[in-house]
């Protein structure tokens, strides 16, 4: 992903950039083994080992055309074909087949149908080699970002050549940020190959650095270091790093807890409406989430190639789909059961079974693949040791957003007013001219719609399948009851509390035990406060 991004940038600046590379590559003279044309066919070989040598050879040529070829290979755009010249082609998907280009001349070779070309399979060793090669080639890219990424990549497993390349680059590097990375990279390398003095120096540069490579380097050094001073220094450096790491770990756990909490809140908040405000125990709530998730899937199917934007379509779509299902359920079943919450439980349980089987028969019993938009994958790097994953961050924010929106609807809008009126005193509200039937339908629809939206969020985290709803229904009820029925704030705080508690217990209790403890805690808590964290008077309170 990231690589291809830089790939395009690289192409844009092709001319200037590659002449630069040639300049930067003069030291390769010795290592340079043959020309690109000689090395290239190796890539078509079946054996991974041969391909690997070919990659190194290609990188070694320092040829200006080498870089895009390696890029294409890494991105999986490089294909082989039988009985035509050149045998190696860069292929891009078109509606009907492939459009081909010559990797060397970049000349257009026209289109062919599906079976005409075969993709060159990669394995991890090959990918590592490719990254290394590309890094050495891009170490002198005009774009600082690219340079520092190259330096980082080389830091991973430094080969003698790459270390040499790093040193060369460090001489000329102007950009401060890139310099620090380079210094770090060289230091890590020195830990392995340098003289005792170099090693000592490296240790001091690495002191307190949070880069995993730094820590790895130090641990390996300590493991097989002979020189006492170096060893001592390294140990000091390591403890310094670890003490900083523990704090990061705590922050991380807190984040984990909050993000788990946000999922619980999302799942429960729709329930807080149907259960809390209307006193309906909706066992089909989970299935309404499932419908939301499937809507996301269908949207992505409908708009192939628009994955990055699909969610913005999916969210309203899911809200409407689940909302309509909700209204249908309310009109056909639940409205006959008001004031009998336990009956609603039984009926909606039946509905949940039907919805599950419906999805199985209409779509399929298998899970379906919902793609993550690029902006949701990867993570936000606070520092090299602490990274917050984007999908979790967005979902956390999203949960809060939904919460606030719901709060506003209930507090500020006419519907909200009527909803609260009906939930407090149905007869009176009717007397005041509130059309309670309509309000009930809309309220339930709202709750269901929120469930659908939650489903969209879940589709980004976990399986989308017929059973996904059941996994959340019980937790959702726990959150609502714990937080206090009919109180949105209770749901928010309850969900977050349970999430964080769960995550802080997990390390020493283990995932399962942590969950059990949380449940037991809730059971006991309800004894102490039968109406939850934030009790509330009103019809919903007495089932």
């Amino acid at each position, binding site marked *: 992903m990231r690589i291809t991004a830089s790939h395009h940038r690289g192409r844009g600046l092709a001319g200037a950039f590659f002449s630069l590379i040639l300049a930067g590559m003069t030291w390769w003279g010795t290592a340079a083994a043959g020309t690109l044309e000689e090395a290239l066919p190796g890539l078509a070989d079946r054996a991974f080992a041969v391909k690997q040598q070919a990659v190194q050879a290609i990188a070694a040529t320092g040829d200006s055309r080498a870089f895009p070829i390696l890029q294409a290979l890494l991105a999986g755009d490089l294909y082989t074909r039988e009985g035509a010249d050149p045998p190696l082609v860069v292929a891009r998907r078109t509606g009907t087949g492939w459009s081909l280009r010559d990797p060397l001349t970049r000349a257009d070779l026209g289109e062919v149908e599906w079976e005409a070309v075969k993709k060159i399979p990669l394995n991890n060793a090959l990918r590592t080699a490719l990254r290394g090669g590309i890094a050495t080639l891009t170490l002198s890219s005009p774009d600082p970002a690219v340079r520092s990424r190259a330096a980082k990549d080389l830091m991973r497993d430094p080969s003698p050549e790459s270390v040499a390349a790093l040193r060369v680059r460090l001489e000329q590097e102007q950009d401060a940020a890139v310099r620090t990375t380079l210094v770090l990279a060289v230091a890590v390398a020195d830990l392995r190959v340098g003289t005792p003095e170099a090693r000592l120096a490296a240790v001091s540069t690495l002191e307190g650095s949070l880069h995993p490579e730094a820590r790895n380097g130090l641990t390996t050094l300590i493991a097989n270091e002979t020189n006492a001073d170096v060893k001592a220094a390294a140990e000091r450096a390591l403890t310094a790093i670890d003490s900083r790491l523990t704090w990061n770990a705590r922050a991380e756990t807190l984040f984990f807890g909050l993000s788990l909490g946000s999922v619980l809140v999302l799942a429960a908040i729709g329930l807080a409406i149907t259960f809390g405000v209307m006193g309906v125990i909706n066992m089909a709530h989970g299935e309404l989430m499932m419908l939301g998730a499937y809507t996301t899937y269908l949207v992505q199917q409908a708009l192939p190639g628009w994955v990055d934007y699909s969610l913005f379509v999916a969210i309203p779509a899911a809200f409407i789909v689940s909302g309509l299902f909700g209204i249908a359920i309310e009109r056909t079943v639940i409205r006959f059961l008001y004031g009998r*919450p*336990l009956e609603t439980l039984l009926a909606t*349980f*039946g509905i949940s*079974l039907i919805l599950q089987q419906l999805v199985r028969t209409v779509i399929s019993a298998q899970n379906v693949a919902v793609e993550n938009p690029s902006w949701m994958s990867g993570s936000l790097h606070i520092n090299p040791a602490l990274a917050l994953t984007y999908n979790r961050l967005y979902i956390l924010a999203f949960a809060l957003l939904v919460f606030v929106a719901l709060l506003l609807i209930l507090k500020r809008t006419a519907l909200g007013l009527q909803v609260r009126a009906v939930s407090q005193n149905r007869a009176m509200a009717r007397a005041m001219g509130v059309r309670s039937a309509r309000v009930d339908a809309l309220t339930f629809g709202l709750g269901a719609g929120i469930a659908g939206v939650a489903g969209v969020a879940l589709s980004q985290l976990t399986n989308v399948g017929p059973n996904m709803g059941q996994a959340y229904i019980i937790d959702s009820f*726990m959150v609502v009851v714990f937080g206090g029925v009919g109180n949105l704030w209770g749901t928010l705080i309850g969900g977050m509390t349970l999430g964080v508690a769960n995550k802080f217990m997990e390390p020493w209790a283990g995932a399962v035990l942590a969950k059990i403890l949380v449940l037991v805690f809730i059971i006991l808590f309800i004894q102490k406060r039968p109406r939850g964290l934030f009790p509330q008077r009103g019809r919903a309170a007495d089932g």
Partner: protein
Amino acid sequence: MGIVKALKGDTGGQVMLAVLLVVTLVVPVLNLAVPETSFWHVSTYTVTLLGKYLTYALLAVAVDLVWGYLGILSLGHGAFFALGGYAMGMYLMRQIGDRGVYGDPLLPDFMVFLNWKELPWFWNGFDMFWFAALMAILVPGVLAYVFGYLAFRSRVTGVYLSIITQALTYALMLAFFRNEMGFGGNNGLTDFKELLGFDLQSDGTRAGLFIASAAALALGYLACRMIVTSRLGRVAVAIRDAESRTRFIGYRVERVKVAIFAFSAMLAGVAGALYVPQVGIINPGEFSPLNSIELVIWVAVGGRATLYGAVVGALMVNYGKSTFTAMFPEAWLFALGALFVLVTLLLPRGIAGWLPARRAG
């Protein structure tokens, strides 16, 4: 004497017990005495199936006692059922002795291949039937007593109660899934050999278990009838309909609730203990909250607050499940789901509700 009084005016119950008696007498004969070739032969498969249904029916009666008459909708009764089952399962495990695949005289197979060294303390005593039987009743009873004491004392009622009972069975399920617990984890307990020295795979034993289940159902039913026809039963209904009123005329509501709840849990335990040897496996799946909800549905289908209705409901729903899963495997869930919806909508008092309104219904 008491029995006569208990069944007075309970036509449904009388018929139900009569039919039960006939079936109990006839089926084993048709199974054992009548040759396979005869049209009248009843296969062992059917006998076992019926036996299983009867244990379900007993479970349903237990649920109806607390739901129909006391107004407590327990979504955790599956847990008491499963605990009773595990007690029996542990006894059956110990009976295997050195006939396990590893031929270990003491340890059940699953402990051997997770190379446990010795038997966990709580497995002691389960080699004796009386102890296991006692535990099958006591463990659910005590759990229900403690849980109920906490919940009812702090006046947790209605939906809240239902949901924490659900939490209870859910927590137990997760706990029993853990292999460290020493109950065989996900696989649970299986591959039983014999019960009180009778080979569990022989037709005779199966017929015996069937009869035992029928007897247990009959006795459980009568016991419940005696309770609901006693003044305590009327107090229970009073609590269901006007809890605080009942308090103000001097009844300790929480004690009445705990007592009946615990008794019902014990019945569930008995049902579980009879269920396990007939189906040949007990595993944490039995704790699944969905099971507990489903068995509440049986009662709803049959008609709550009519004990015989619970029996009818359990038999019908399960018979339906067995046939539908075989007849249209892809679609049977639709049927089941629809059944639940329609019953709650159209038959709020279940099948028994068709009958002219009864008092204390």
